[in-house]
């Protein structure tokens, strides 16, 4: 069979010439897939809506020699609340790029798929705490990818870290006690409460994330910890992460 059906979230939708788009899809049935959608930038195209970034759509794909192509598609959930707000679009782009990086082509990853689907639902609601939900998504995705930072015991000596200030090192992969703080050059210190919130973000039901009260200062620390950790382990800073930084700390 040359045709196959998947339900997928559009992680990336890149405009090409002749009104085509190259899609990166995260599908429930087959994991990550790249496919071309022909003519979808024309107003007359019926596929136009379903191939927009972050859409959850059902696709009928045609297996090509080099690249699969979209034969038919229909939107299941368009997340229109997400599209109506620049912050949400920017965060969603980041979540999608992070998921893209953390997934391999043709490898089924149900956990990552449902995590992304849930988070897109959550951030498309009015008044959603997009920033905190993003932190929760990050640590969960790292957990799924087997890259979760150690948050309980010192990565140097293994003792539980219970002091008021806690060291954190991206390169050694987690918290560091006072005696081991010379273990790596990138150890930074944070109040223990900040690390505790990180643990909560991982443990609590994602839908309850917004009940956690977090001050602007702690949010900034959480962002610092996660952003450093992620760019260290991906060995690059994501384009969308840079975009978010520019959006909020520039102009």
């Amino acid at each position: 069979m040359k045709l196959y059906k998947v339900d997928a979230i559009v992680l990336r939708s890149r405009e090409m010439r002749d009104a085509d788009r190259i899609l990166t899809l995260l599908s429930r049935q087959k994991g990550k897939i790249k496919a071309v959608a022909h003519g979808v930038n024309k107003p007359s195209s019926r596929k136009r809506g379903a191939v927009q970034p972050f859409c959850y759509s059902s696709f009928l794909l045609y297996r090509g020699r080099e690249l699969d192509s979209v034969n038919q598609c229909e939107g299941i959930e368009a997340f229109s609340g997400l599209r109506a707000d620049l912050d949400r679009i920017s965060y969603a782009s980041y979540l999608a790029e992070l998921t893209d990086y953390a997934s391999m082509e043709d490898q089924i990853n149900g956990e990552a798929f449902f995590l992304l689907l849930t988070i897109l639902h959550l951030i498309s609601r009015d008044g959603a705490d997009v920033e905190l939900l993003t932190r929760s998504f990050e640590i969960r995705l790292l957990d799924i990818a087997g890259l979760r930072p150690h948050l309980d015991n010192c990565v140097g000596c293994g003792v539980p870290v219970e002091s008021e200030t806690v060291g954190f090192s991206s390169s050694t992969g987690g918290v560091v006690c006072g005696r081991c703080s010379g273990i790596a050059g990138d150890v930074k210190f944070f109040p223990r409460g900040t690390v505790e919130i990180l643990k909560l973000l991982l443990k609590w039901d994602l839908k309850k994330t917004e009940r956690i009260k977090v001050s602007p200062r702690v949010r900034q620390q959480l962002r610092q910890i996660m952003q450093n950790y992620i760019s260290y382990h991906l060995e690059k800073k994501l384009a969308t992460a840079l975009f978010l930084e520019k959006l909020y700390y520039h102009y």
Partner: protein
Amino acid sequence: MKSGGAIERLVRELSGLPGIGPKTAQRLAFYLLSASPEIGHNLAQAILEARNSIKYCSVCANLTDKDPCRLCDDVNRTPDVICVVQDSKDVMAMEKSHGFRGLYHVLHGALQPSEGIGPDQLSIRQLLKRLEGDKVKEVILATNSNVEGDATAMYLARIIKPLGIKVTRIAHGLPVGSYLEYADQITLAKAMEGRREMQ
């Protein structure tokens, strides 16, 4: 055979153009070679001339052969309304509609976080410069109706509104002549949002 090489090259160059497949390229090439010599000659000349003289307008960033461009220079156009579009092609489309008599600004793209295209990659600084002083009363955001175009419009609204200038977005909805049942959910939602009271 020497002439065979030249024809093949012409076909290859033509088929590299957007919207032209190998079949069409072949048809065009044979037309150019069989028609009177001036036709091919004039076309080649026109391409060269345009290519060598086209630059960006220092006011609106549109492609032009003179600076400021003819649109920016036209005294019959309303200077206090600026319509912001993504591409030079969009200016042409808008002009053909005869629906707008103000000035334009061409961004040369749209924000695309995942491709690393941020505000600095577009002609946004140049636009902000035009908004200094209080000559401009309204900015119309006519970027495309997709995620990138919407994000760009929202970003521009966010930085222009604080300047006390009216910011509007062109309406998006059902294409003229289309059936409701064929519209997708995003288009329908937008059409509903942009509804107007009947006169």
